[in-house]
């Protein structure tokens, strides 16, 4: 992979875990900004976030893009100043690029579809018009806030004598979060699925401005309830970077244990749900119980099955003694064996695997161009994992075994989740065996004023990105949250193209995306 002709000077490098003064990010010409984003994506890197700051002049905005640039690893070896570590054959580094725009600018989406939701978000939140954006619908305020439920925004329509439309939601037939789905079908065949979200919107980002408040961490643990540890950790990284606090190796290791337990509970639970969706009940029942066992392990650490209270700014809220780590390892081994038995049944059942294979395929080129993240991206051949690209100490010391598949179907996503679960069992066994020493919690200090910091965590669904910007008093002037679901909902829409409407539950479960994390 080459670096094309990107002039690296227009990027301001940012070290992972360290904050930088906002005025160190000099705005560049819009064309340079656009080419930096384009080149980053073309090189296999990521646009982690794209948002706008208001300026002192009316109708003038500063677009801010936080990028994860991918480099061939020799480059990383030659430049010891690079903040990130090598992931596979590549290394990643963080950079920030800014540009001034008025109320409109030429859309970047036609060239780089991975930016389509960020641009819709800019339009929705700031009124900036990315001219030439192919589908400038609101992201999450439909139909709340400015909208009206009886006057929804136009959705994609298909006309023809034999075409029909199936509308589902917002309330679904089960214990599921609300969202509105429209399938344009010809018979059973789905031409197109469009998903309208925003029903879980609770005004989270606006609530964070002026913080951190005493309820901020509670809000972070509820960005997406099943990713409490992931989001709390990303937030803690932001605050720790802004207050120049370094957590101890022990606190880092305990956070990683919480994160992997969260991953295990969700992966094992969803594998059971996938089995349930194809009527293979043995694995469905066993995994349901095993998920509970894994949640109970989280509760052994923090008292909460969802890991609430584990991550605290500056460290962790709970410690493990030798007796507890010993009994956790023992339980993990027996749960791991039981989960393996349950999964072997599923993967050895041709009627189940036959239903998974070739269903809901997201080809690698689609996954790459849409910027999918997490296991869904890795099941479609996109090699991206924060635990390898921007590892904390624990993940550097105990690299997680890493898998990549190309097929991009329900089978690949299911297998990927089982492989990742196996890797997490092995990781936890290693880390719990030799928990490093260190303080549980370092007292946080005042946040640096007029600064920006990035938090990055590989949650069980994928890349979680938090960005905090402080004002002159060291309070949050703005706070951005990008849940992996933000990127991956479009992947689910693509998975349904040309599929049958009866494939939907299976495809949906294979992604199991968060509505709350998307709607914020």
């Amino acid at each position, binding site marked *: 992979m080459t670096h094309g002709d990107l002039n690296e000077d227009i990027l301001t490098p940012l070290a992972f875990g360290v904050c930088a003064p906002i005025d160190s990010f000099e705005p560049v010409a819009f064309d340079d900004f656009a080419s930096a984003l384009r080149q980053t994506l073309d090189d296999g890197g990521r646009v982690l976030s794209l948002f706008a700051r208001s300026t002192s002049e009316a109708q003038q905005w500063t677009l801010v893009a936080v990028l994860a640039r991918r480099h061939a690893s020799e480059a990383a070896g030659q430049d010891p100043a690079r903040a990130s570590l090598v992931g596979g054959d590549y290394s990643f580094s963080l950079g920030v690029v800014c540009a001034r725009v008025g109320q409109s600018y030429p859309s970047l989406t036609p060239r780089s579809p991975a930016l389509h939701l960020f641009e819709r978000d800019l339009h929705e939140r700031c009124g900036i018009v990315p001219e030439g954006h192919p589908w400038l619908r609101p992201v999450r305020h*439909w139909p*709340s*806030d400015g909208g009206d*439920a009886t006057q929804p925004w136009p959705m994609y329509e298909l006309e023809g004598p034999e075409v029909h439309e199936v509308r589902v939601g*917002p*309330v679904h*037939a*089960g*214990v599921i*979060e*609300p969202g509105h789905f429209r399938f344009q079908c010809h018979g059973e065949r789905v031409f197109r699925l469009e998903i309208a979200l*925003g*029903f*879980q*919107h*609770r*005004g*989270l980002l*606006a*609530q964070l401005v002026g913080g951190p408040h*005493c*309820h901020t*961490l*509670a*809000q972070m643990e*509820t*960005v*997406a*309830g*099943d990713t*409490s540890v992931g989001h709390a950790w990303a937030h803690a990284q932001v605050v720790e970077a802004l207050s120049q606090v370094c957590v101890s190796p022990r606190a880092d290791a305990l956070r990683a244990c919480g994160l992997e337990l969260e991953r295990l509970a969700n992966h094992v639970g969803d594998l059971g749900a996938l089995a349930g969706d194809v009527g293979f009940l*043995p694995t469905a*029942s*066993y995994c*349901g*119980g095993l*998920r*509970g066992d894994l*949640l*109970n392990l989280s*509760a*052994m*650490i*923090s*008292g*909460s*099955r*969802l890991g*609430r*209270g584990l991550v605290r700014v500056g460290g962790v809220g*709970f410690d493990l003694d030798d007796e507890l780590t010993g009994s956790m390892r023992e339980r993990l081994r027996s749960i791991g064996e*039981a989960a393996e*038995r*349950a999964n*072997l*049944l599923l993967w*050895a059942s041709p009627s189940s695997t036959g239903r998974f294979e070739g269903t809901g395929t997201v080809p690698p080129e689609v996954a790459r161009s849409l910027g999918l993240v997490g296991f869904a991206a890795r099941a479609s051949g996109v090699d991206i994992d924060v635990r390898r690209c921007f590892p904390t100490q624990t993940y550097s010391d105990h690299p997680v075994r890493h898998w990549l598949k190309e097929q991009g179907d329900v089978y690949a996503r299911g297998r990927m989740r089982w492989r990742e679960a196996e890797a997490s069992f092995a990781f936890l066994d290693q880390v719990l065996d030799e928990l490093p020493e260190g303080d549980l919690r370092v007292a946080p200090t005042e946040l640096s004023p007029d600064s920006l910091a990035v938090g990055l965590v590989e949650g069980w669904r994928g890349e979680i990105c938090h960005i905090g910007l402080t004002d002159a008093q060291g309070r949050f002037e703005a706070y951005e949250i990008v849940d992996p679901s933000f990127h991956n909902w479009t992947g689910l829409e693509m998975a349904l193209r040309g599929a049958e409407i009866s494939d939907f539950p299976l495809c949906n479960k294979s992604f199991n995306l968060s*509505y*709350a994390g998307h*709607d914020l």
Partner: protein
Amino acid sequence: MWNILRTRAAQGQRTAAYPKSAPELPARFRGRLALAPAACDEGCGACVDVCPTHAITCEPSLALDLGRCLFCTECVDVCPTEALSSTPDYRLATTTRDALVLKGEPLALAERLSDEIARRFGRSLGIRVVSAGGCAGCAAEVNALSNIIFDLGRFGIHVVASPRHADAMLVTGPVSHAMKGAVEATYRAIPAPKFVIAVGACAISGGPYAESPAVEQGLATTVPVDLFIPGCPPHPYTLLDGILRALGRAVP
């Protein structure tokens, strides 16, 4: 086939002994908080300052609203006089909002909602679950009730896929403005007699989002609530205990 049977044998009996015996909970489980207002050093206010949801007041005397509480126990950690303590008691459900405000007396736990509810639904209850602006943490624990450990079906209780099949509505989340209409429509579509369960701090009081202009401050401003089950999220046993109590069923 043999493999499936062998795995079934290795799996063993997983369903909990509850309600014949009290549930097993983790040692660090944070249940009901206990108050000793007499021990409170007036004017200290340390607990008031750390509480993320303003669940605690010191004036005129110490009171804690379990409907707002996230059970983070930060207040317990900062209290210099042990006027606040955390107990492992998982039983938290009440039938009135006021009962959730602890002032030092024992918590008035929920009892059967009415003779008619107990008679009609005591052995067969269909619940329609609506997630309305929450984080899905409560929804995940409601979902867990249907797994083989808690096995809701053995009580004759099941989650139904249509409000027309439902006898009760269970709502999680603070009720986002975008969901208010859907919650009302679901309530209207459930045939009477019916009752409503608010699950979690968000549905009872708005929880950590109580100050957000994008949400209601809980379910009660949208539909009448009959049963309050606090927590963030409530443990599945807390949920089960509350629902069984509302039906007048025996619980430990």
